[in-house]
């Protein structure tokens, strides 16, 4: 066996190789400490390792002259990274030994990037474990979560403690049957300073292979789709080993847990995959002393914004740091720098200030800073200056301040700063953020009063959406003019909202209204907040993420620390409980966690459903209302008869107007709801489902599976029988049968068949024109093809007869039929001439959703 003593430096460098991610490492190794698996480099998995040689010199220099790197610019921001003990190389052989001597009181940082857009609004839970370090890193990368990492040069042996953490964790996931666990071993080191490291996360077969270019790092993602990769950027910032454990939960492939084990500490990040984004739901870390030390927080989607500090500011920082003579001074300096930057960010002058001429602050006194660096404290003592004042303005309940644009820019740039890297500032990024904030301002009013929109900052990136909404707002506004006389309070409320949505101007009246409304909501919210037991003092008001997250952490604190892994947290406990009492609510797609004050509880939803069911308004309105009801049900995890009824109601409305897209959404939901055994009109909807598959999807396999799923009992049902008969008529092309069934259709089967009538008629006429000679009377066609009420026996209603006839004649003409009058003066179809002349006309008023009656203009006229 090779030994891993420091003199064999290149060997340990091998561990920088991405191949160091041992795919085959199984948890048992941890306990056995079986030697030899350090060899398990996966050769082919290392496409990203482009510069392994680069690392050698760095590594060596850091081995030999740990101090030499210190005074070099930004590099100095991570002082702890340059002091690696020789001993931990030898620990690479077996995992339990990887945890180096541990001293939880002196730690360095592992940085985990969080969402730049959301992070600024979070109370950043940097542990006060060592104020100097946290402050340093906070100044440079405020949006990172810090994980305690022991300074390796203080090797007091708490080996056992660390071991126990590892084992404890391992046991926890070994016990859990459904969990996949892979452990990767990575050696993370500080590379060139300020450099972004790309980490490629490929999910293969449900597992994650983790490869990294250059230095480090750790992360997440399991997709079960082999060809998809998640990219994320990491900043290498620590020196030491990082263990990454990926736990893909078997019950929910889109949620996964990343466990990062830094020697002496554990950090969990809970990830949830939605669409193409990763939502980091929670992170907390456990330091070596097995105390929960940092805050958990809910983080937003993981889209990487490049860092955006101005170059001049970078220079300023470098100048400031260059004055420092030793480590302690450096640390103090960084603290001071951080404050300067935070202040600048807060008052919005980060970009405007001329950093080149900015006077340097006096070298700080060192004592105070270093003192309180030691003990870990819970999140309640988060660095206060993390929260910029601009955040407060994001609370949408507050009156709109006049200086909104400035504020917005500040908050955006704050976001940028929080995610920032010193090196990656560039002009375009800045413009981007500025433009976004302008954009924001444009659409501001329309966004501001949206009921479910709680994080306006989030909307920054979604410029197209507000615009769309605004367009709808215009429409709705004109509708409001009609509605204005309505005496219903709710209606007025809605009207007010609608007009607010389009009022771009900031008329005083408008503002007053808003203020009133804000106050009203403020009250509601305040009450709620008081009831919230878990609400920590330092958490910003109105920030649900933070509230929920801290609730999490506090509850963990109550329960005797780290003995429970994150995967044991009951996520359902985080389900929103709505408090909104409004019956009407507009639908807005959620882009963030729901705010209870905008979510209606079940009994209100019931009323809302009744309101919609009895509403006289048109489909667009109903659809909107039902969608918002559905959303509220979803966020509150309500799945019962009410849910079924809501979906059924929506599906019926959708069928009535022929909105198949919406119908399909409801149908798929209903399918799962019925499968859970919740009662409803199951048969009615299996009939709809069959009809839909038959008439509109035209997919034999779907049809077969739909048919084979039908139970014997279901086949006895009237509606299902009818649907099956329709199917038979359609597959055999029996138009006579089809239109007979059309007339006798139960429920809304007619509506679904309606959408197929045109095709069927056309096929029928083609068939007739081919087979019948010489003529076919129009009256016969009208009768057979279901044109209204042509009953030869009922002579009294002769007028109606002609109605159907005329319609049929019109239809035939529109489709190129050749009509002549025969001897007795009856209109007949000249079949021979028709054979070549029939065609399917383009629908004149084709609209995107397939039903002209839903066109927006139409909607307006109908409404008035």
């Amino acid at each position, binding site marked *: 066996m090779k030994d891993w003593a420091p003199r064999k430096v290149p060997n340990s460098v091998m561990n920088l190789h991405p191949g160091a991610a041992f795919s085959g490492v199984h948890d048992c190794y941890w306990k056995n400490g079986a030697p030899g698996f350090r060899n398990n480099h996966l050769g082919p998995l290392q496409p990203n390792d482009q510069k392994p040689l680069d690392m050698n010199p760095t590594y060596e220099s850091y081995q030999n002259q740990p101090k030499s790197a210190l005074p070099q610019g930004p590099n100095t921001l991570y002082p702890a990274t340059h002091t690696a003990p020789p001993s931990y190389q030898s620990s690479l052989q077996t995992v339990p030994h990887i945890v180096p001597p541990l001293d939880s009181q002196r730690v360095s940082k592992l940085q985990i990037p969080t969402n730049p857009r959301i992070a600024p609004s979070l109370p950043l839970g940097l542990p006060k474990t060592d104020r100097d370090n946290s402050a340093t890193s906070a100044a440079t990368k405020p949006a990172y979560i810090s994980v305690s990492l022991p300074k390796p040069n203080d090797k007091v042996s708490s080996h056992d403690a660390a071991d126990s953490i590892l084992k404890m964790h391992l046991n926890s996931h070994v016990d859990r049957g459904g969990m996949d666990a892979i452990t990767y071993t990575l050696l993370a080191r500080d590379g060139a300073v300020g450099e972004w490291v790309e980490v490629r996360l490929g999910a293969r*077969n449900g597992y994650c292979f983790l490869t990294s270019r250059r230095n480090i790092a750790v992360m997440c993602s399991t997709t079960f789709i082999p060809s998809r990769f998640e990219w994320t950027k990491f900043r290498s910032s620590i020196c030491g080993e990082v263990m990454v454990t990926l736990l893909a939960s078997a019950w929910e492939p889109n949620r996964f847990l990343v466990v990062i084990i830094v020697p002496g500490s554990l950090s969990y990040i809970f990830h949830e995959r939605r669409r193409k984004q990763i939502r980091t739901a929670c992170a907390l870390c456990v330091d070596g002393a097995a105390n929960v030390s940092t805050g958990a927080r809910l983080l937003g989607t993981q889209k990487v914004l490049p860092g955006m500090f101005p170059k001049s500011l970078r220079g300023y920082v470098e100048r400031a740091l260059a004055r420092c003579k030793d480590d302690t001074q450096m640390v103090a300096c960084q603290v001071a720098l951080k404050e300067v930057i935070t202040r600048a960010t807060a008052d919005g002058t980060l970009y405007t200030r001329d950093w080149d001429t900015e006077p340097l602050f006096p070298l700080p006194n060192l004592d105070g800073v270093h003192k309180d660096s030691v003990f870990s404290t819970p999140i309640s003592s988060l660095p206060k200056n993390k929260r910029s004042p601009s955040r407060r303005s994001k609370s949408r309940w507050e009156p709109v301040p006049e200086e909104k644009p400035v504020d917005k820019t500040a908050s955006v740039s704050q976001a940028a700063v929080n995610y920032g890297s010193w090196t990656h500032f560039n002009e375009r990024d800045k413009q981007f953020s500025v433009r976004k904030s302008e954009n924001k301002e444009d659409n501001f009013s329309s966004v501001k009063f949206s009921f479910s929109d709680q994080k306006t900052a989030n909307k920054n990136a979604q410029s197209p959406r507000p615009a769309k909404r605004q367009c709808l707002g215009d429409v709705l506004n004109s509708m409001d003019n009609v509605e204005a006389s309505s005496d219903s309070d709710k209606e007025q409320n809605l009207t007010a909202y609608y007009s607010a949505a389009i009022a771009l101007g900031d008329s005083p009246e408008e503002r007053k209204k808003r203020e009133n409304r804000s106050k009203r909501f403020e009250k509601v919210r305040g009450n709620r907040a008081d009831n919230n037991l878990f609400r920590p003092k330092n958490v910003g008001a109105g920030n649900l993420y933070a509230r929920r997250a801290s609730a999490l952490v506090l509850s963990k604190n109550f329960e005797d620390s780290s003995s429970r892994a994150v995967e044991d947290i009951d996520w359902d406990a985080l389900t929103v409980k709505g408090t909104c009492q409004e019956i009407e609510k507009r639908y807005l797609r959620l882009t963030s966690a729901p705010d209870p004050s905008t979510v209606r509880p079940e009994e209100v939803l019931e009323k809302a459903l009744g309101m919609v069911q009895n509403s006289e308004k048109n489909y667009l309105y109903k659809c909107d209302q039902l969608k918002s009801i559905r959303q509220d049900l979803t966020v509150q995890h309500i799945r019962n008869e009410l849910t079924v009824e809501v979906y059924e109601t929506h599906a019926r409305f959708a069928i009535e107007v022929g909105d198949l897209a919406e119908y399909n959404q409801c149908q798929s939901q209903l399918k799962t709801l019925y499968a859970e055994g919740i009662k409803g009109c199951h048969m009615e909807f299996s009939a709809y489902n069959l009809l839909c598959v038959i008439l509109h999807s035209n997919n034999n396999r779907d049809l077969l599976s739909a048919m084979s799923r039908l139970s014997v009992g279901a086949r006895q049902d009237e509606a299902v029988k009818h649907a099956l008969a329709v199917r038979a008529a359609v597959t055999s092309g029996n138009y006579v049968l089809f239109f007979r069934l059309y007339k006798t259709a139960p429920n809304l089967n007619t509506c679904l068949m309606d959408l197929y009538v045109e095709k069927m008629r056309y096929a029928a006429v083609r068939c007739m024109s081919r087979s019948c000679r010489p003529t076919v009377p129009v009256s016969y066609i009208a009768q057979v093809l279901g044109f209204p009420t042509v009953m030869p026996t009922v002579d009294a209603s002769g007028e109606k007869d002609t109605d159907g006839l005329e319609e049929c004649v019109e239809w035939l003409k529109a489709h190129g039929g050749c009509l002549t009058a025969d001897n007795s003066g009856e209109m007949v179809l000249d079949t021979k001439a028709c054979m070549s002349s029939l065609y399917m006309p383009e629908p004149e008023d084709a609209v995107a959703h397939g039903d002209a009656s839903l066109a927006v203009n139409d909607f307006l006229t109908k409404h008035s």
Partner: protein
Amino acid sequence: MQSEKYSQYVDIMVPLFRALQNYRLGNLVDSYQAFEKSANAFIQEFRNWDSAWALDALHVVAYEIRVLAERADRELGAIGKNPEKLKGAGSFLMKVFGVLAGKGPKRVGALYVTCQLFKIYFKLGTVHLCRSVIRSIETARIFDFEEFPIRDKVTYMYYTGRLEVFNENFPAADHKLSYALTHCNSRSEANIRMILKYLIPVKLSIGMIPKNSLLEKYNLTEYSNIVLALKRGDLRLLRHALREHEDRFLRSGVYLVLEKLELQVYQRLVKKIYIIQKQKDPNKAHQIKLEVIVKALKWLEMDMDVDEVECIMSILIYKNLVKGYFAHKSKVAVLSKQDPFPKLNGKPVGS
């Protein structure tokens, strides 16, 4: 160093042993997970080898991961969890396919993996996923299809034939399934039966009727009544046979194909009437009154009125199962004097 040289096998062997042990203990899910780990490691190694010497081993891996996944899914389903291992095996095999599908000696093995993939996709009902694999097999010019091993070719043709049945592309289905049938080992009767299960409906649809002895030999008696109905023009018998074996036909996916035979049954019925009329009065035989057909159907206990029968006659003429025209006024179908009932002769109805 010796240990270094073989170190890569650790990743293969250790999980494999774990899989075996778990299998013996009856923990199929754990066994599958470990096996997949092992298989992944094996694939990593396999990728590095230039020759295809380990192809047989790979085939074993591909087969076993599928079977193991199926059983693991059964275990997961029994405890109420989401059975997703087969899906996982599918994505693993897709990866294996990627390793094999390129140029070179390994390509010979690609078809085997394709067949395993087919089995998974058909089982999961995600047949649309087959398309990419098929495209990659069929468009590759560098490798002739005939060079693949025969058993793989038969399996491949069987599954692609089934796909064509789904699409109701009968000539193609006929070609593929017939290929599978002729190349299939004549001693593996179960396989022949599986092929015939799809080939018979296809052949019926293009107007070819199997001998009863064939149906009996391979125990495909569910088709015998259908064949009889086709011969007799007995609509009632056809519908009865379909209802009787509805579940089976729905599951295998030939229900809709068989249902479409109805038109041929009508054709046969009309032909019978025509022949009887011809015996009575050869001059008027080509004129068939609708009432006669209605009456005939009534004997079969099929309650249809004149409109409906007219519609059916129209369709028969339209689909070229009957030559002639229909005189609406007099409600008489006038048949062509030459070949009024054209045979399908291997062409599908309606072409």
